């Protein structure tokens, strides 16, 4: 295998997945031995529930990162969406309309994010961080800090709806995951995100409408954060500005662990993100199950992140340097 093959080949990506799978199996094995409750149905349910919102947002974040950007607004959009939804419902707006309005608001925020990024020539990290801060401030002003409760009964009942035995949030995630998985491999627009992220100028010269693509990517990410916010409100029958704190870091870590490169656009995969999601969910559950102190939790998460980045970037660098 020559140098080029080693850097670009599918074999390298598979190696990353293999290591991830191995880690997942190891952690699962260790936990199963340590605690009799780990592999119970109720715990596995909880495992998924704990990370389902981040899982949804990770799908959109994957596309943003592949395009070469990053989206920190999700930590602000999630609580914002839950709050706006709650307020609309309490003002007797019908459920479907309320959901559509919230998604529309998120799309608008995504568009604003992209416009600011482009016109002010700011790094996406800066722009999205600022917008998240603004949104959190708005949330605090609207709610005065307390959670919103007293939502209509019909909505509260939604929290207990089970389709095929699964809560609404799971169904939504499964549908979205399948869509993103399939589209990212076969849909022309999704594939263009890879082109743009890999070489923006070349993509432009090939006729791809680069600016529209960036805008759409941020809209998608914002919309998924809104979906997560709506589902959070449904799950807890409540809305609060405290929801989603630091969710952006968890989501980005998930995407990075899945093998999508944070530094070079154009490389990554939704499949990797799915694996990363599974990994993170297990880890977070393992933390609580094993009673590890929160302080070590951060250390462990950080260590895995470094490991993931090493896997995807470091091997490339080492091999390039050798030749």
């Amino acid at each position, binding site marked *: 295998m020559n140098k080029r093959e080693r850097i670009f080949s599918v074999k390298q990506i598979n190696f990353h997945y293999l290591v991830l799978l191995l880690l997942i199996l190891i952690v699962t094995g260790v936990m199963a031995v340590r605690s009799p409750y780990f592999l119970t149905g109720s715990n596995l349910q909880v495992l998924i529930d704990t990370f389902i*919102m981040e899982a949804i947002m990770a799908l959109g974040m994957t596309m943003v990162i592949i395009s070469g950007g990053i989206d920190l607004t999700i930590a602000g959009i999630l609580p914002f969406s839950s709050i706006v939804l709650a307020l609309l419902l309490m003002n007797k707006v019908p459920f479907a309309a309320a959901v559509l309005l919230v998604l529309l608001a998120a799309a608008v925020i995504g568009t604003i994010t992209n416009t600011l990024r482009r016109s002010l020539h700011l790094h996406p990290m800066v722009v999205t961080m600022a917008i998240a801060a603004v949104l959190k401030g708005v949330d605090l002003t609207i709610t005065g800090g307390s959670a919103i409760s007293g939502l209509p009964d019909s909505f509260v009942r939604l929290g207990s709806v089970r389709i095929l035995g699964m809560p609404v949030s799971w169904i939504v995630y499964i549908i979205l*995951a399948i869509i993103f998985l399939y589209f990212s491999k076969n849909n022309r627009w999704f594939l263009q995100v890879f082109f743009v992220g890999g070489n923006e100028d070349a993509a432009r010269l090939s006729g791809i409408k680069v600016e529209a693509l960036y805008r759409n990517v941020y809209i998608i990410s914002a919309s998924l954060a809104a979906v997560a916010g709506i589902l959070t409100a449904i799950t807890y029958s409540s809305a609060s500005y405290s929801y989603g704190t630091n969710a952006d870091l968890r989501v980005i870590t998930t995407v990075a662990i899945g093998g999508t490169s944070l530094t070079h656009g154009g490389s990554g995969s939704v499949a990797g993100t799915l694996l990363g999601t599974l990994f993170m969910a297990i880890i977070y559950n393992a933390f609580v199950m094993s009673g590890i102190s929160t302080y070590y939790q951060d250390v462990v998460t950080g260590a895995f992140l470094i490991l993931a980045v090493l896997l995807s970037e470091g091997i490339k660098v080492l091999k390039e340097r050798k030749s």
Partner: protein
Amino acid sequence: MKRKIALGLTLAVLASGLAGCGNAAPQTSGTGGAAKSEELYSMVVFTKGAEYFNWCYAGMKDAAASIGDHITVELQGPAEWDASLEARTVEQVTAKNPTGILVASADETTLNAAIGKALDAGIPVIGFDSDAAESGRLSYVGTDNYDFGATAAKSMAEMLGGEGEVAICMVPGAIAQEERAEGFKNWLEENAPDIKVVSELNDEGDVAKSETVCTALLQSNPNIKGIFSTHGYGAPGAAAAARTLNMLENVVIIGSDYSSAVIELLQSGDIEGTVVDDPYLIGYEAFMLAYAAAHPTAVPSANPPFGHVPPVIYGGSQLLTGEMLEDEAVLAKYQNPPAVN
């Protein structure tokens, strides 16, 4: 190919989750009076790491130790203040099937479902410090925060001689603090109407932020005679602000709770007092209630199949001053905060 494996694995986990859904039948834990099998009690807090909760946990640990070493306790909770994260932590803890759960709720509503699920699974849940009143938790141990605020108001009124302008530093939305602020204001209205609360500031529970907002406050309104902070980080911040502006003499600062920083400031006289409840005792009592609920006795219970517990226990609150700390015994009680690994 590998992607298919990943997808397959995810689906497998989901499938087993499905299977689990059907089997979530309530299990009564604890067989009251049987041989001493291992028991686990979990304390779930928001912002794990806060010194206040560490005191609660220390109380819980001691209470558990006093019953026997077959009891294990643990402290769980997200490091950031996110109610939905805390709710998820409660759910995760529930999946471990502990003998009892103690929970300080991030807000009044978000944890209701999770607490309900734990109760349905036969695990007693006792609320403490910050209550989720509608959740169905068996009991609540905490501070009467209105009373707490009133204690502060009373002291403030005495120190100010009955009149002047004061401000409150707080985190809006935190139930305990809202209540303390209410109690403070109400007492003043009824008993010292010449003291006016002219400002309520949000300092996000952070000492640096508190210093910033207090500096702005004192600069814009030099008539402020007193500052009351409803949480533990506000008084040091207010003191720092007053010191920088050379207004320490003119401003009475009364804080809430205690920490090593607050103790030092009390001893140096920079702050005039702090209202304290007893988090250690709260944790201790909360554990005892959880244990009682998990071990029903012959006493008829208000919440079968759990053991009987009273609906509410309030610890009292009192003003702690620098003078009081001159007594060695008193000082020893408030220093040496417990470290939680």
